[in-house]
């Protein structure tokens, strides 16, 4: 079985191993021990602080294989991006050029550098070990964050967004980067990708194009990957789209991977979640898997288990009860998987 809980310092070695497997294109999860340690520290700090509105806190969660207590996945939430330095994206906007005289009506897509997502909460870096990339684990890890948000709405903004990894091959070659970013950064994709994970991002403001880039003037292979999700992230993308996240024409400035967004209140997990008491039935008959969450902040835990919604609450079995550290009658949240 799986459990999602906030990351702890003891998880560091496991997280480092995960990050090494993740590879290029996951800028928020760099294989750098210090940075990972900082991320855990930041998350712990956020969980122990009395927060009344989002202000740049970041939360890191881990997916635990309860059979051996190993960390096999991680994900996070930034309560607000763009607090210190603006958060950059390209907005794809059509520039309309029409000549009635020539009966030409051209809609020319162009990339506009913008910080439209500055000030918004972001779901980040869903990473799961290959062997555990099954639908239950993936869905649990992804949606557990939304249950956390539902439980602590004041800590996040009303809208959320997620960046999906764009096309690049295993050597880190990105056709989009090669056609565009390279000219402005004078470095390779790997390095820019790494820097944007570890540096203060000033360099983006300093080096990025100030004027819109007309898409048709880019080489065809670069045009072809704009807004396209990396093969490895297709599962993640499917889960998010099923949740109600939508692509609104924003892409990553490095690899042109799409950004998807949604209002918290429109998300399937949020609208369908119920809360009530934990009812302990040793022999719960139901086969219907549920995501079940309990606890606040540092004690927040989510698992996926068979359960039976009843009028008084949710019927769960003993092992689920133990995983969640709840007693009979404890307040829990749940949603069908």
């Amino acid at each position: 079985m799986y459990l999602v809980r906030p990351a702890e310092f003891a998880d560091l070695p496991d997280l480092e191993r995960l990050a090494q497997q993740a590879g290029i294109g996951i800028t928020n999860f760099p294989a750098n021990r210090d940075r990972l340690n900082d991320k855990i520290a930041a998350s712990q700090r956020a969980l122990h602080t009395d927060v009344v509105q989002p202000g740049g806190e970041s939360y890191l969660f881990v997916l635990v294989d309860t059979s051996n207590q190993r960390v096999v996945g991680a994900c996070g939430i930034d309560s607000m991006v763009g607090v210190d330095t603006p958060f950059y994206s390209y907005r794809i906007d059509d520039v309309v050029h029409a000549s009635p005289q020539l009966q030409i009506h051209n809609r020319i897509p162009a990339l506009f550098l913008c910080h439209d997502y500055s000030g918004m909460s972001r779901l980040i870096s869903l990473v799961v070990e290959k062997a555990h990339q099954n639908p239950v684990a993936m869905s649990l890890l992804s949606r557990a964050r939304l249950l956390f948000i539902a439980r602590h709405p004041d800590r996040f903004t009303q809208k959320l967004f997620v960046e999906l990894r764009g096309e690049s091959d295993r050597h880190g070659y990105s056709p989009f980067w090669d056609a565009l970013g390279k000219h402005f950064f004078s470095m390779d994709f790997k390095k820019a990708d790494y820097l944007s994970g570890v540096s203060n991002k000033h360099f983006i403001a300093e080096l990025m194009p100030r004027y819109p880039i007309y898409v048709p003037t880019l080489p065809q292979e670069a045009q072809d990957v704009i807004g396209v999700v990396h093969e490895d992230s297709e599962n993640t993308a499917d889960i998010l789209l099923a949740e109600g996240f939508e692509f609104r024409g924003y892409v990553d400035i490095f690899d042109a991977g799409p950004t998807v967004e949604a209002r918290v209140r429109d998300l399937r997990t949020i609208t369908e979640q119920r809360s009530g008491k934990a009812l302990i039935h040793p022999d719960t008959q139901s086969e219907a898997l549920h995501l079940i969450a309990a606890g606040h902040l540092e004690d927040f835990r989510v698992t996926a288990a068979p359960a039976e919604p009843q009028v008084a609450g949710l019927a769960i079995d003993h092992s689920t009860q133990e995983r969640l550290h709840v007693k009979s009658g404890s307040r829990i949240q749940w949603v069908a998987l």
Partner: protein
Amino acid sequence: MMVIRPITQNDLAALYRLAAKTGVGFTSLVADEPILQRKIEAAVRSFSLEELNQPGEESYLFVLEDTEADNIVGVCGLLATVGYDEPFYSYHLGMVTHSSRELGVHNVHPTLTLNNDYTGCSEVCTLFLEEDYRHSRNGQLLSKSRFLFLAQFPERFTEKIFAEMRGVSDENGVSPLWESLGRHFFSIDFSRADELTSLGSKQFIAELMPHNPVYVNLLPPEAREVIGKVHKSTEPARRLLEQEGFRFADYVDIFDGGPTLEVFVQDIRAVRESRLALATVGQPKATDSGTTYLVANSKVQDFRCIMIQRSTPPGSSLVLSDEEAKALNIQNREPVRIVELSPYSNR
């Protein structure tokens, strides 16, 4: 004798014959009788204005006549101002720098920005000489005669003047810059765009061209290379203007990337060094050796310009032969403007 004079109503057939020989990419002279007729009428009207205090919409068109063969063999022009009747577009080749001290990166990005910066500026335009006459400095006479007109009548032109140079295209008229840039925005062929422009219809440029700067480094190499370069056949014309003081000021043609050269009228060598002299009709010492000079009269409607040779530099007076005086359409003691045909010829 080869004489420059204003075009007249009688020159339509000759002008049409010349226009038919110009070929693709020569948008200022197309073989279309009504258009050429209108051009001639505008020129005749412009030359007929004896008093003018400032440049307006005048266009001056001159022809080069071989008086012995009674043949019009070349044409050149001046526009008092461009851009008022129809917008005048160029790309400005600018730069944007980005530097990151933290990373030690310093990038300079050249950019092309659409503009109408030459609006209201005078233009040196329309130069064509018949193939058979491309010898004996006829090309220089044709091109530089205009500078004596500028020197004599500066109030008819703006302080700055420019010339557009034909850009690079291959034997089929395919322009690398157009293929990489313009085509995406126009959805029409280069030749069609060229044709529309020559018909004086330019609104579509504003409607279709990109209004934001285009990063040159994102264009393919074959397009980058031709920005600011002239067509091979135009290289001599470019050198000639540069010797006279014209300079590339980072403006290029929006279709083929050909350079625009500009200069302040008073800085043109042939203007700055030209001077007035009183003509004495008589027997000049030698007229077939020594330095070649351009000589023009000081009339508008009856403007004339010829080349002469003298072995001693003329001073405040200039002895002209009967034939020369006749070609210049002047009497004894009339003022003429004179300058060495080429720079450094007086050193």
